[in-house]
Structure formats: C-alpha cells, structure tokens
C-alpha cells in the first residue's frame, strides 16, 4: 500500500508546509502520493510533481474544493482512503479542520501534530503545550496523522512524477463559503520564516509594531509574530499569534520583544534555534529560555538595534 499526503494549497500555490509534512510521510516507508485539491491548481500541481521521492500526484481541480472546506475535502479523502495505509496532512488550519473529520468517518483515532516518526505505527507528539512529549502507538489499521511542520525539514525538489487527475466526489451540502479576509504580505510566512520577530503586550499599541518592529523585520527578512496578549489587545492580527493554540514556529532566530513568556507562548517558539528576549522585567520567564537577553526599555533598545543592523548594511 501507499500513503497519501494532503497538500497545503494557499493562493493557488503549494505551501511549504507540504514539503515538510512530506518528510514525515516518507518516514512511514511506503510510496507516497500527494493529493492537491482546490481550484485552478496548475502551479501548485506542477510544484508538487517536483517533490523528491514521491510516486505520483493526484489532482482534484474543482470549484467545490476552492476554499478547502472540511466537508467536501473530507468526503474526497474518505473516497480515496481505501488505497492507503495512512493519510497525512500538515497541521495547518486546513489540516486541523479536515483530518479529524476524515478520521471519524473512517472510525480511526487521529494522531495529532506528530513531531517524530518512531516507527510506521509509533509517533511522538507534544501534549500540555509541549511540556510533555508522548510516544503513542496506533492500533488502528489505517493511520490518520497531522504533522507539526516546525519539527521536520522540508523535502527538496528536483523530481518529476506523473499527475493523475481525479474527479470531484459527492460533497455533503451542509456548508458553503461566504468570504475571506486574507492578509497580503511581501514578508516570509510566519510558519516557515528563517527569522521571526514577535511583539507582546509591552508593545503598547499597533503603531509601535509598525515603527519599532517592522524596520528590523525588513532588514532581517523576518516574519512578524505576536503573543496572545498583543493579538487580544488588537495590536496585531490573529494570524500572527505564536503559541500553543496559534502557530508553532522553529526559526533559526526568534526575537521576542516585550513578551513575558507565558507557557502558552513558549509552546509555540521554544524549539527555535536561537532565541533573543528583549524585556524590561529581568524576572520575565522568557529569559529562562533565551540565548541572549537584553533587559531594558524596548522603546530605546529597538531603535538602537535598528541602527546597529543598518551599520551592517542591512
């Protein structure tokens, strides 16, 4: 049998989360098929066919999948499930929405947000906001898995595999798309950026994100993030939230500005390679996990940091 990976498509393009989840899928030691579902998928399908080490790409190009609604997408996956020993998806908001629906329809207990494949039926996953790591063995014949992408490197390109077009399946008529507000940004995506700069309650307002964090993010090619407190207060949009229930990131460099470091926030960034904390409270828990700390007023430190980076020609 083979395993099926549901590709993550955003704005008609293949999201990098797919290549990361693929690394986990390949560890199951069976041929991997990648399903690209959506509408107007030429670009995404083409990128998928180049993913290294897969057997083929299935393309379901139909308006019913345009907005990745859980109900039609789950129905399609269930229809395909008979050919596969495992179905995986990146633990993105789409993967988290769709996969448990698939699991229940197949009477399978999903394994959420795996961070390691120990054996094809055994996985490590974080619980309690990452404060414990559980090793679980699935006794279900079929495995339904979501993959924490921050824990896996991306599989490279360079391959070229065939595409198989598949017809849209019957979709349950219980839901419909109304509209969406998607942030448009030239910046790298938060989930896959090499550098992330996040602001917390200490930022005091949305303007300070713009004047103090944005110039530095520009210089470092960084994505911008936020703590829950900053999002709740309206300083930053919801899709910037890093933490247990927001996005989980593991960049090479994470800079936490005015973030005290609640366990729920640490859960979303503590696997970053290098962590920098900038906070006026030297007792803030963020300093317990930071490689480099600057204790002081962020309103003085951030402009200084911006100048120092400018000196480097950034």
């Amino acid at each position, binding site marked *: 049998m083979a395993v099926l990976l549901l590709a993550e498509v955003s704005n008609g393009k293949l999201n990098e989360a797919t290549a990361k989840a693929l690394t986990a899928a390949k560890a199951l030691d069976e041929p991997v098929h990648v399903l690209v579902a959506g509408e107007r998928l030429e670009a995404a399908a083409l990128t998928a066919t180049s993913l290294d080490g897969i057997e083929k790409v299935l393309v379901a190009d139909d308006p019913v999948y345009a907005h990745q609604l859980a109900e039609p997408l789950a129905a399609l996956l269930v229809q395909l499930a008979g050919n596969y020993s495992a179905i995986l998806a990146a633990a993105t908001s789409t993967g988290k929405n769709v996969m448990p629906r698939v*699991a*229940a329809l197949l009477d399978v207990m999903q394994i959420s947000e795996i961070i390691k494949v120990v054996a094809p039926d055994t996985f490590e996953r974080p619980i309690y906001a990452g404060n414990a790591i559980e*090793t679980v063995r699935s006794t279900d014949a079929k495995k339904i898995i979501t993959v924490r992408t921050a824990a896996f490197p991306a599989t490279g390109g360079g391959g070229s595999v065939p595409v198989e077009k598949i017809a849209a399946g019957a979709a349950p008529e*219980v839901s*419909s*798309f109304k509209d969406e507000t998607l942030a448009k940004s030239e910046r790298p995506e938060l989930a896959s950026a090499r550098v992330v700069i996040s602001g917390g309650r200490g930022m005091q307002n949305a303007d300070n994100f713009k004047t103090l964090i944005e110039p530095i993010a520009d210089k470092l090619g960084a994505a911008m993030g936020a703590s829950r407190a900053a999002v*709740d207060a309206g300083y930053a949009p919801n899709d910037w939230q890093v933490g247990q229930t927001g996005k989980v990131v593991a960049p090479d460099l994470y800079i936490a500005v005015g973030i005290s470091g609640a366990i729920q926030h640490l859960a979303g960034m503590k696997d970053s390679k290098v962590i920098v904390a900038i906070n006026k409270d030297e007792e803030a828990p963020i300093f317990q996990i930071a*490689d480099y700390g*600057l204790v002081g007023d962020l309103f003085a430190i951030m402009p200084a*940091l911006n100048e120092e980076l400018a000196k480097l020609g950034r």
Partner: protein
Amino acid sequence: MKILVPVKRAVDYNVKIRVKPDGSGVDLANVKMSMNPFDEIAVEEALCLKESGKATEVILVSIGPAQATETIRSGLSMGADRGILIKVEQPVEPLAVAKLLKAVALAEEPLLIILGKQAIDDDCNQTGQMLAALLGWGQGTFASKVAVGEGHVEVTREVDGGLQTVSLNLPAVVTTDLRLNEPRYASLPNIMKAKKKTILEKTPADFGVDIAPRLKVLKTVAPPTRKAGTKLASAAELVARLKDEAGVI
C-alpha cells in the same frame, strides 16, 4: 433552539505540569483543575445566544470522573440550564468522546453544538470535527464570530492566512477560538441558583458506546530543556553576538 455545550475538566491553564520520572505520564495529583478555557468560551457564546433570544436552553455535557460534576456546576453557575455527566474513570480519546456526544445529540436534538477547539491537556483539536462528521453536520471550527440566522449559522473562522467566513445549515457544530468572547464570572446569586440545577448521570454503557482507546501511550517524557543564556548590555553587543557567535544574521 437548544444548544449543547460539551465541557472538559482539564488541568488549570496556569499550572506548570510535571512529568513523572518513570515515564508513566503527567503528575496530576493535587494539581488545580478547571474547565478547559476554550470550553468556557463555548459556554459564554451559548449563554449570549440565549440572552439574545436565539436559543431557549443551554445544556452542558461532560465526560469524565465524578469530579467533572464540578466542571459542569461551574458552567451552570455561569448560567447554563442543566447538565449531563457521562461518568468514566479512565481517559477517553476524542473519537470515543465524539461518539458519546453524538448519542447525547441524538437524544437532546440541539440545533447547535458549541465546543472548545482543543483541550489544553492532550492538545488534540479533534472532538468537534469528529462529532460533526459522525452526525453528518457542517462544522465551523476556530470561530471568532458566530451569527445565527434562520436555518443557518455564519461562522467566521481564524485561519492561517487571516479570517474565513462559512455558512452552515443548522444543525451544526462550532468550535471556539480565543477571540470569540470573554467568558463571564459567575455571580453569587447564580452560584446559589446553580446548586439547584439538575445534573443527570449516565455511563458510556447507557449509550452502547465502546470507549476502548485506539492509541497506546508507550511513554511520556519531559521535553529537552533550554538553558538560560547570556544577558547582554547593548543592542550593539547583541548584533555582534548574533553575527559572529550564533551566525544567524
């Protein structure tokens, strides 16, 4: 319209948990337990719908040990009407929870089921989606806004790129995200009133649901710890260290 709100007794969100040294699990002895925070948001949303005249009754259901009664009671103190406890001693996986909730839904016939998007103990984020699947209903997960109309509900969802709004036929399942509302505190009169509200006790056997786990937990360990690093004196020093020592800029 009736609203069903499943609530879970979970470790309090302020507790820093400890992993047992023998790898057998997380030490929950004498640890403060509370209603899962996302479930509190679900209760609040249901109560707001009742107060605005869209809903007639808010029913809480919890699956857990005898102490889960306290969790239900705290939701009743917020203003919910009555509760159902499905008593189990062992941990129950989301799939089995969804099957039990389906049975309750078929008996109670709610038009809306609102749940927390995930429990902060197992961090599974599955139950609502599974329940919607088993009932054949639409699902509006990670909701930051819920607008109930005639025969349908519009749910604005927090998604990776921003916000998405879907329309679901009723009955439907909604799971809550953090910014849907701010749960109220129970007032003293409501705490007194809640003592008289009924909590019906059931068992999984009453619903004929098999709750045997599908996942076998082999071990539970603490994650690798990070050591606190160096406190630096200036932005200049930070940039130098990031460049020369860490090599990340």
